[in-house]
C-alpha cells in the first residue's frame, strides 16, 4: 500500500535527523517535530475492504451528518468513512451491528431523503445514545458509527490540527508561564 510506505519514509527521516548525545544548543536545529505535509494516510484514495460501495456511501453520509462541513471540512473530507471501514475490516465484532444498521437505513431509503429528513431519522437514535439507553439495532449502529466518526475525525490532520488547532509536538526552549490576569491569585 503506497500510503503506508510513504508513512514509513517520513518516520524514518525523522529518525536520521537526530543525534545523540548532544548538548542543548545542538538539539533545536536538528529536530524535526512538526508533522510534515507530505502525503499521509488520510489523503490516499480508498477502496472499501469491509463495506460494499453502496454501504460505504451510506456510512459516508451518516458520518458527514455527525460531523458536517462548517468553516472547516467535515467527516468525509477528513477520510472518516475509510477509517470506519478499515476498523470494521479488522474487527469482526462490529460487523453485525454495522450491517444491521445499514439494512435498517436501506429500508428507510436513507440516501433518497432530504437532509432534514435524514437528521430527523437519526435524532431519536442519538437521543437514546445520550440517555445511555441503547437497546435497538439502529441505536447500537448509531452509537458505534458516532464513536468511530469522532475517533476518526479528531485523529485526522483536518480534525486535530485544522479544526481543534492542535499546537503541540514543537520545540519550546521555555514552557510558557500562565500570564492570564484572571487566573492569578
Amino acid at each position: 500500500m503506497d500510503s503506508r510506505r510513504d508513512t514509513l519514509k517520513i518516520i524514518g527521516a525523522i529518525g536520521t535527523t537526530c543525534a545523540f548525545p548532544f548538548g542543548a544548543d545542538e538539539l533545536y536545529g536538528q529536530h524535526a517535530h512538526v508533522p510534515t505535509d507530505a502525503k499521509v494516510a488520510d489523503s490516499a484514495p480508498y477502496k472499501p475492504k469491509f463495506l460494499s460501495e453502496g454501504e460505504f456511501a451510506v456510512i459516508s453520509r451518516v458520518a458527514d451528518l455527525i460531523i458536517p462541513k462548517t468553516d472547516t471540512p467535515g467527516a468525509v473530507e477528513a477520510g472518516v468513512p475509510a477509517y470506519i471501514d478499515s476498523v470494521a475490516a479488522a474487527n469482526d465484532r462490529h460487523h453485525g451491528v454495522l450491517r444491521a444498521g445499514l439494512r435498517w437505513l436501506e429500508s428507510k431509503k436513507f440516501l433518497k431523503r432530504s437532509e432534514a429528513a435524514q437528521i430527523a431519522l437519526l435524532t431519536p437514535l442519538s437521543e437514546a445514545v445520550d440517555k445511555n439507553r441503547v437497546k435497538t439495532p439502529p441505536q447500537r449502529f448509531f452509537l458505534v458509527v458516532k464513536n468511530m466518526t469522532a475517533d476518526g475525525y479528531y485523529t485526522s490532520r483536518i480534525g486535530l490540527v485544522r479544526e481543534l488547532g492542535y499546537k503541540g509536538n514543537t520545540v519550546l526552549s521555555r514552557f510558557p508561564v500562565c500570564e492570564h490576569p484572571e487566573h492569578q491569585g
Partner: protein
Amino acid sequence: MPGKTFDVCIVGSGAAGGVLAAHLAFNGVDVALVEGGPRIDTRTAFNTHAMPFEFPNRHIPVMRPGVAGFDSERSRGVGGKTQTWNAVAWRQSHRDFKGGSIDGAGVDWPIDYTDLAPYYEAIEREVGVCGNLDGLEDLPDGVFLPPVPMKCSDVIVQRGAAKLGVKVIHVRKATRSTPSATRPACHFCGNCMAGCDVVAKYNSADVHIVPAMKTGRLQVFSDSIAREVSLSDENRVTGVRFLNRTTLSEGEVRARSVVVSCGCVQSVALLLMSKSSRYPGGLANSSGELGRNFIPHFTGGVQCFLRDLIGRPTENDEGFLDHAYIPSFMHTRKRDYARSFGVQFNYQNRRGVGWARSMPGFGKAFKQSVKERYPAFLTFSPYGEMLPKKDTFIDLDTERKDAYGLPLARRHVAYGENDMKIFRDMQRWSVEILKSANAEILTVYDKPATNHELGGCRMGTDARTAVLDANCRSHDVRNLYVVDGSVFPSASEKNPTHTIMALAARTATHIAETLRKGEM
C-alpha cells in the same frame, strides 16, 4: 562466555536493574545483566514525534517500524519501563514507611525514611529530578533542578483547590529542566510516555547502563528471557538460566549472587517458576508469602472541562505532560479509613480526543461543542493505597503459556472495605476540587482500576511473614536479592519509582560490602 562466574547477576534492566548495574560496576563489582528484550537505540526506536494521522488505524505504535522491543509483557527491552514511564519521582515519608504503626492497618517497612534518605539524594543527583522545595512533612524535599512552570489549567485547579484548603504543588519528575553535560533539558514536545528520544527524561539504559558498560565491569545479556534462578544443594543460587528471545535456545549466566529486578509481577513469576525439591512452592518461599501481599495502586478518575478555558484559543501545553500534583492531604484530616490518596492530573496529551465520543448530539452543535471544549479538557486521577489482604495475590497460570512456553502470571485483585472507602472518598474529593475550580464534569469513574504494581515479595524482619529482609535479601537463600516494586510491604499513595531506585542504590551498597567482606 562459558566458564566465567560473575560477582552478581541482575535480572531485569529497568529502574532497579539499571541503578544496581551501574552502582555495582562503578564499585568494581563484575556484573551480568540479563534482560528479556533487545537493546534499544532511544534516539531512533520510538515514535516520540508521531501523530495519529500518520497511521491508517490512527494508533501510534510504541516502536518504529521494524524495531524490536516492548512486544510482550515479558520482553520489553533494555531500560524496561523507564523508557516509557512518566518520570514522576517522589520521596516517601516516615508515614509511608511506618503506616502500620501509625494507622494500625497494613504493615511497617523494616526500614525508615532516614535509612533511604541518602540514597534518594544520590539518585536525584544522578538522574536529575526537577521540582519545587515545598517543605511538606509528608513529601520530603530533595536535591532538585528548577521546577517546570505550571500550565494555565493547573493554576486554575490550584486556585479552586486552595478554597478547600488543598495544596497543589509542582510535580517532581526525573526529567531535566536544565541541561547537563550529557543530556539536554526537556523541550516540551509532548509525548514523554512514547519514549523520550533525547533522554531529557531519565531512562536506565542511557543514564545508568550504557555508562556502566564503559567500565568493562558490566556485561549485558539482552534478548535473554530468564526462566529460572538456579539453586545448588548448598541452598545458594548459582546463576540464571534463560531463553534467547528469537531462537529460544537455552543459555545460562553463573554468578556468586543474583538480584531479581524484573518488575513486580514478573519477579514474583520468575521465583515461582524456580521450583526445586527444597522450595517446591517457588524459590525462597519457605514462608509461603511469595505472591501474597500484592498491593497495586488503584486509581479513580474524573474527566472534566475547565469553564474558564472553554472557547479560548488552544494552548501549546502538552509538553512534559503533568506539571502539577495534589499531595496526600487526608492523612491529616478526620476520615473513616486507613491511609490516603494523592492526585495526578492534567497529564493527558492533546493528540487524543477520545472524550469527544461522550459529547451529546451530532451535527454542527456537536462539532462546535467539541471544539470549544478541546482547550479546556482535563483528566484527574487520584491514586489510592491498597491494604494487603488474602484475596489479592499473584500466581502462575498452570494452563496457559506465553510465546516462550513459560507460564503466564496471573493477578488476582479484590477491593476490601478500606480500599473502597478510599476510592469513594477520593472520587468525592476530586469532584469537589474540580467543581471548586469551576469545572464542567464529564465523567466520574464508578470503579477503581489498578495501576503501579507493588508487593508480592515483601521485605520484613520476620522470615515467617516476609520473603526478604531489610536489605532486600532473601531470608531463605542468603545470596539472593529482589529489588523492585514487589518488595514494598506497604504501597503509600506515591508513584513508586524513586523509592525503587533508592532501594536499588542501597542494596547495591550492601551487596558490594558483603562481597568485599567475603560474606556472600
